[in-house]
C-alpha cells in the first residue's frame, strides 16, 4: 500500500548510522594518520583476495543451502526438546574460534572420530585440511545462524496462511511455491550476505584448516601488516579493500531483497496442518538428526575435554569470566542504543539499502578498529583503562548487522500493520516504542540480545590490543592458558565460556519469548 505511514522518528536512526560510520572511518583515518610510506599491494595480496572471496562465497552458499531444509523441518515439526535443540544449535556460532576448531578436529581431524570409524570399516581416511575444511568450519559456525534467521522468517508467516493452505489441501510442493518460496526470497539474500561478510574476515579458521599459506585471507594480511610489519599504510589499504568487498556484497544482497511483507495474523500459535505424510516426517526427522549431529558432536568433544579441565582452572579464570560477563552486558546495552533507532529508520524506508551500514562494522577488521581507536585514545588517556568499554563497543558493532537482520523485517511488518493506527492515535517517540514496537518485537529482541551477549562473551578481537592483566576476558585468559601449556585448564575455560555464552543466549531468548507470550 502506498500510504505514507512513518510514525518512527528517523533522526536518531540516521544519527546512529552516522555514528557507526564515524567509528569505523575514524579508526581508518587514525591508522592512516600514522602511516608512513609503506608498500602497496603485493602479488600475494591478489591471491589472498581471490581466496578470501572464493571461500566466503562457498561458505555462504553451503550454509544457506543446508539451512533451508533444516529450518523447514524445524518449522513444521513439534517434538520434545525442540526448544533446547534450537538453543543448542546456536552454540557453534558463539564459540571462540580455537575451541570450535579443536572440537571439529576431534570429529573430523586426522585422528578424529570420523577417521577412526572409516579406518574401522577399512575405508580410506578423509582429510579436513584444505578448502573443504575451511568451508566445513564456516558452515559449522554459520549454519545455526542461518537456520535461526530462516526459522524466524518461517514464524513470520501468519498461522492463518498455513490454515488456508491446509484447507486448500495444497501439496508440500504447492505450499513451498506459494508460501515458502516468497519467504525464502525475502530472507535468504540477507542471510547469505551476512555469512559471506562474516567469512570474508575469517583468519584463524581459514589458515588452520586451509592447510597452509594457500589459504591466506585478507584478514591475515591485515594482521601481518599491523602486528608483524607495522606497515600501517598497507594495513589501512587492505582494510579498505575488505570494506569495499563486504560493502559490495551487502549492497547487492539488500538490493535483491524484495520489499514484501507477509502481513500479520492475530498472534495465534503457529500450528501446521501441512506435511503430515510419513515420508515427509521421515525426511524432516533425518534432516534434523543430521544437522543436530553435525553441530552437536563437536560440541560434545568440547564438553568432554572441558569437564576434566574445570577442576584445574585457576581463580583468574573466574575473574576473567566476570570481565566477560560485564563486557557482554555492556555490549547488549550499547547495541540496543545503536540498533533500535537504526532499525526504526531502516524499517520505515521502502528500500533496505541503508542496512548495509550495519555490515560495515562486521566487515571492518577488528584489528583496524582497535588500532585506530588506540591511536585516537592514546594521547588522551591510558587505552587499557578503556579496554572493556571499547571491547563492548566493537563487539556491538560486530553484532549490529545480525541484530538488524533479526529485527528489521519484524519491525517493518509491525509498522506496516500498526503504523496507521498509531498515527491516528498520535503515538510517537518513546510511547510508540514502549507500547507497540518493543512488545511486538519481544521475541526478536530477546534473540538479538542473546546473540549479542553470547557473541561478545566469546569474542577475542579487540581486547588483545587493549587488555592488561586485570582486564582479561575469558577467551583471552583461555589463550593465555594455552600459551602456558595449560591445555587442560584451557579446555575447562572453554567449557565455562560455552556454558556462559549459551546461558546468556538462552536467558535473553527466554525472556523475549516470555514477554511475547504474556
Amino acid at each position, binding site marked *: 500500500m502506498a500510504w505514507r505511514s512513518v510514525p518512527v522518528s528517523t533522526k536518531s536512526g540516521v544519527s546512529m548510522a552516522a555514528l557507526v560510520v564515524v567509528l569505523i572511518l575514524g579508526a581508518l583515518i587514525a591508522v592512516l594518520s600514522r602511516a608512513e610510506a609503506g608498500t602497496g599491494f603485493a602479488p600475494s595480496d591478489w591471491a589472498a583476495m581471490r581466496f578470501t572471496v572464493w571461500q566466503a562465497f562457498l561458505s555462504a552458499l553451503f550454509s544457506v543451502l543446508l539451512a533451508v531444509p533444516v529450518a523447514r523441518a524445524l518449522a513444521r515439526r513439534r517434538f520434545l526438546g525442540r526448544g533446547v535443540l534450537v538453543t543448542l544449535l546456536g552454540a557453534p556460532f558463539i564459540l571462540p574460534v580455537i575451541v570450535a576448531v579443536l572440537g571439529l578436529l576431534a570429529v573430523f581431524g586426522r*585422528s578424529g572420530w570420523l577417521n577412526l570409524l572409516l579406518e574401522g570399516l577399512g575405508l580410506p581416511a578423509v582429510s579436513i585440511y584444505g578448502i573443504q575444511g575451511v568451508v566445513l568450519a564456516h558452515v559449522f559456525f554459520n549454519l545455526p545462524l542461518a537456520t535461526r534467521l530462516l526459522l524466524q522468517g518461517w514464524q513470520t508467516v501468519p498461522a492463518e496462511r498455513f490454515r488456508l493452505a491446509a484447507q486448500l489441501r495444497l501439496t508440500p510442493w504447492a505450499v513451498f511455491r506459494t508460501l515458502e518460496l516468497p519467504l525464502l526470497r525475502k530472507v535468504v539474500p540477507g542471510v547469505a550476505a551476512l555469512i559471506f561478510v562474516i567469512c570474508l574476515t575469517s583468519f584463524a579458521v581459514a589458515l588452520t584448516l586451509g592447510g597452509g599459506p594457500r589459504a591466506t585471507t585478507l584478514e591475515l594480511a591485515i594482521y601481518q601488516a599491523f602486528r608483524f610489519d607495522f606497515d600501517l599504510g598497507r594495513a589501512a589499504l587492505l582494510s579498505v579493500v575488505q570494506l569495499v568487498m563486504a560493502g559490495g556484497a551487502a549492497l547487492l544482497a539488500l538490493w535483491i531483497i524484495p520489499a514484501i511483507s507477509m502481513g500479520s495474523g492475530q498472534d495465534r500459535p503457529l500450528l501446521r496442518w501441512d506435511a503430515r505424510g510419513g515420508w515427509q516426517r521421515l525426511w524432516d526427522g533425518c534432516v534434523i538428526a543430521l544437522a543436530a549431529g553435525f553441530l552437536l558432536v563437536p560440541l560434545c568433544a568440547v564438553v568432554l575435554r572441558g569437564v576434566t579441565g574445570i577442576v584445574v582452572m585457576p581463580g583468574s579464570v573466574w575473574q576473567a569470566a566476570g570481565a566477560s560477563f560485564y563486557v557482554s552486558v555492556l555490549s547488549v546495552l550499547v547495541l540496543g542504543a545503536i540498533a533500535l533507532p537504526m532499525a526504526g529508520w531502516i524499517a520505515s524506508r521502502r528500500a533496505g539499502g541503508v542496512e548495509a551500514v550495519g555490515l560495515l562494522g562486521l566487515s571492518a577488521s577488528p584489528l583496524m578498529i582497535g588500532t585506530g581507536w588506540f591511536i585516537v585514545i592514546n594521547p588522551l588517556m591510558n587505552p587499557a583503562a578503556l579496554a572493556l568499554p571499547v571491547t563492548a563497543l566493537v563487539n556491538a558493532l560486530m553484532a549490529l548487522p545480525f541484530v538488524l537482520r533479526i529485527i528489521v523485517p519484524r519491525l517493518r511488518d509491525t509498522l506496516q500493520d500498526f503504523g496507521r493506527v498509531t498515527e491516528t492515535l498520535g503515538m510517537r517517540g518513546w510511547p510508540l516504542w514502549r507500547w507497540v514496537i518493543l512488545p511486538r518485537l519481544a521475541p526478536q529482541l530477546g534473540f538479538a540480545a542473546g546473540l549479542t551477549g553470547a557473541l561478545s562473551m566469546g569474542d577475542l578481537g579487540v581486547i588483545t590490543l587493549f587488555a592488561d592483566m586485570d582486564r582479561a576476558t575469558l577467551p583471552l585468559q583461555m589463550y593465555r592458558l594455552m600459551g602456558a601449556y595449560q591445555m587442560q585448564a584451557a579446555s575447562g575455560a572453554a567449557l565455562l565460556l560455552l556454558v556462559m555464552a549459551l546461558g546468556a543466549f538462552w536467558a535473553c531468548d527466554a525472556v523475549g519469548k516470555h514477554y511475547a507470550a504474556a
Partner: protein
Amino acid sequence: MKALTLAATTLIAASAAVAETPELVVYTYDSFVSDWGPGPQIEKAFEETCGCDLKFVGNGDGAALLARLKLEGERSDADLVLGLDTSLIAAAKETGLFADTDVTADYALPIEWTDSTFAPYDWGYFAFVHNKDMTPPANFKALGESDLKIVIQDPRSSTPGLGLLMWVKDAYGDKAPAIWEGLADNVVTVTKGWSEAYGLFLEGEADMVLSYTTSPAYHIIAEEDETKAAVVFDEGHYMQIEVVGRLSGSDQPELAAEFMQFMVSDAAQSILPTTNWMYPAVMPSGGLPQGFEALVQPENARLIEADKVPALRDEALAEWLGALSQ
C-alpha cells in the same frame, strides 16, 4: 602512567605529602603473565626488594608487543619491555625508544652476548617435538622425504614460525626453497600461533610440531609424562633468545635498571625454567631443575645477527610462500 601519575601527584601535593609507591610498568607477552607463567612469581620476588609496585601488562606475543610499543611511541606508559626476541631486536632498536643498559651477568648462552641495549633473560632452541613412539628424522631433508606430518606456525603471525623460517634460511641459504618444497607435503597445516599448533599436535593431528627443545621438560616435570621428546637435527638448531630492555622515556629509570639486573639475577633465573619452560640465561646456583637433564642437546647453535634479520626475513618469507602455496 605519566598523565595519570601527574594528575595524581598534583592532587596529593595539594592535600598532604604522601610517599607514593613508585609503579614500574612492564610490557610483556601474554603467556608470561598467565598464572603458570613466570609473571606472578617474578612480581612477588622483585616487589620484596624494590619497594615498588611491579605491573605486568600482557600483550599477545613478542611481535604484538613491539607493534603496541610503536603505536604508543613516546607516550608509552611502559618502563620496560620484556619478551622481544632476537628476530625483533633490530626492529625494536629502530624505534629509538630504548635506552642503553649496563647490565652484566655471567651468561650461559651458547653464543657471546654483546648487545648494549637489551639483556637476555632466557633462551631455547627451536625444535620439532614428537611422541617417543616414532623414529624421528635426522634433518630437514629426511623430514621432507618422509611421510611424517608436521604442524608449523605462520611466520607472518608468530615468532616460532619466523624462527623456523630463519632456521631453514640460515642452514640452507639459497637452497632453502628446495627444502620448503620438500616439506610442503609434510605440513598438515600452518597455524596463527604457537598455542594452536601445539594444541593440534596434542590432539593427534600431526606427528611433530614446531616448538622448543625444552617443551618436553614441561610434560616431564609438570605432568610426569615422559612420552614427548624433541628431535635433534644435524643442521644445528636455531636459537631464540628472549630479552628485556628499558625505555628511554621511563619515569623510573633507576628502578627499570634495577629490574633488568634482577631479571639476570639468581632469584629470577631460578624461576624461569619451570614457568617459561626455557633455559635460563644465567645458570642458577641450584643448577637446572630435575627433568631438564633428559632434554636433548643440539650440538650446533644457529643465530642470524639481529641487524641482518629484516632483509633476510623478507626474502625467506617469499620463498616460503612460494613453496607452500603451490
